[in-house]
């Protein structure tokens, strides 16, 4: 099993690194049962995150035909909507602390949405996301009628995009597994390890990282709860 974590300009480093470390530890614990790499739509390059100019290097192109996991992180920037939103203009140079939906919107004008659509359409690929990563998918029109979560501040945007927004830490919708805000990337990574490799490997990594996964992984399964 191979996992590609997709970097784009303005990405949130923790959204990418938390699952990277969890899946990489899973590689060791499983004797190579899973491999993980950082990729970008444009190929190998230094990608500038949205946090203090921190850069990570993507070592390959995103290959949606490759079986396994494609994981999309969110962006980091300001969560306060400006009083006056600028015109949508992905060609405008990005600035530090840009409003997060505007940052995510820039990614829509790259090759990323088309590659993500190929990944979503590939039955051998599970698409995963952390934080605003699901909003990139949703804004690209790829989550129509799908169950997903995102950062709690983004749930209304997710819902307005035609997806069913679920307020859970991790949502499993089959070939789409989404995580909520930032640190949920640890939980998402551990859940993917459990689902794709096995609970003993996931447990060993959980113990090593001193992070016990929180909350029920939401699935559209079983009875719908009555109001409590």
């Amino acid at each position, binding site marked *: 099993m191979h996992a590609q974590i997709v970097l784009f300009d303005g990405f949130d480093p923790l959204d990418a690194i938390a699952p990277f470390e969890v899946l990489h530890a899973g590689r060791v614990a499983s004797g190579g049962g899973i491999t993980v790499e950082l990729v970008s739509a444009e190929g190998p390059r230094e990608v500038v995150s949205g946090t203090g100019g921190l850069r990570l290097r993507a070592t390959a192109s995103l290959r949606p035909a490759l079986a396994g996991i494609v994981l999309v992180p969110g962006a980091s920037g300001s969560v306060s909507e400006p009083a006056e*939103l600028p015109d*949508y203009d992905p060609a405008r140079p990005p600035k530090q602390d840009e409003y997060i939906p505007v940052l995510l*919107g820039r990614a*829509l004008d790259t090759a990323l949405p088309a590659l993500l659509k190929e990944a979503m359409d590939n039955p051998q690929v599970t698409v995963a996301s952390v934080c605003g990563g699901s909003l990139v998918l949703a804004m690209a029109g790829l989550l129509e009628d799908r169950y997903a979560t995102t950062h709690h501040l983004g749930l209304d945007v997710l819902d*307005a995009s035609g997806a069913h927004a679920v307020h859970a830490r991790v949502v499993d919708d089959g070939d789409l597994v989404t995580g909520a805000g930032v640190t949920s990337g640890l939980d998402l990574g551990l859940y993917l390890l459990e689902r794709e490799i096995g609970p003993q490997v996931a447990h060993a990594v959980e113990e090593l990282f001193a992070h016990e996964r929180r909350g029920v992984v939401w699935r559209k399964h079983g009875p719908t709860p009555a109001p409590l």
Partner: protein
Amino acid sequence: MNPAGTWDLSISTPIGKIKAVVDLHEKAGIWRGTAHGAGEEIPLHDVALDENRLTWKQPITKPMRLNLTFDVLLDGDTMTGTSKAGRLPSSGVTGQRRAD
């Protein structure tokens, strides 16, 4: 008021303001419309006219996928009101009718 014609709209979305073009026409007492943009035509839903108040629903796909509900007041060749995306707060929308 008769809203028939082609309208240029400015709409606020979470990723910034975008332009949209909407065509409105009436047939047998029922108002219909289509939205144009990025080489596609999307039918408007639930178009309703009450005196000078016009409401409709419009899914957009470019540059981002968003379900929008419009509620505007018509004044000559100008419309002013709000668009609302799901549970997000409503935001201002303005439109100008094109001269034939």
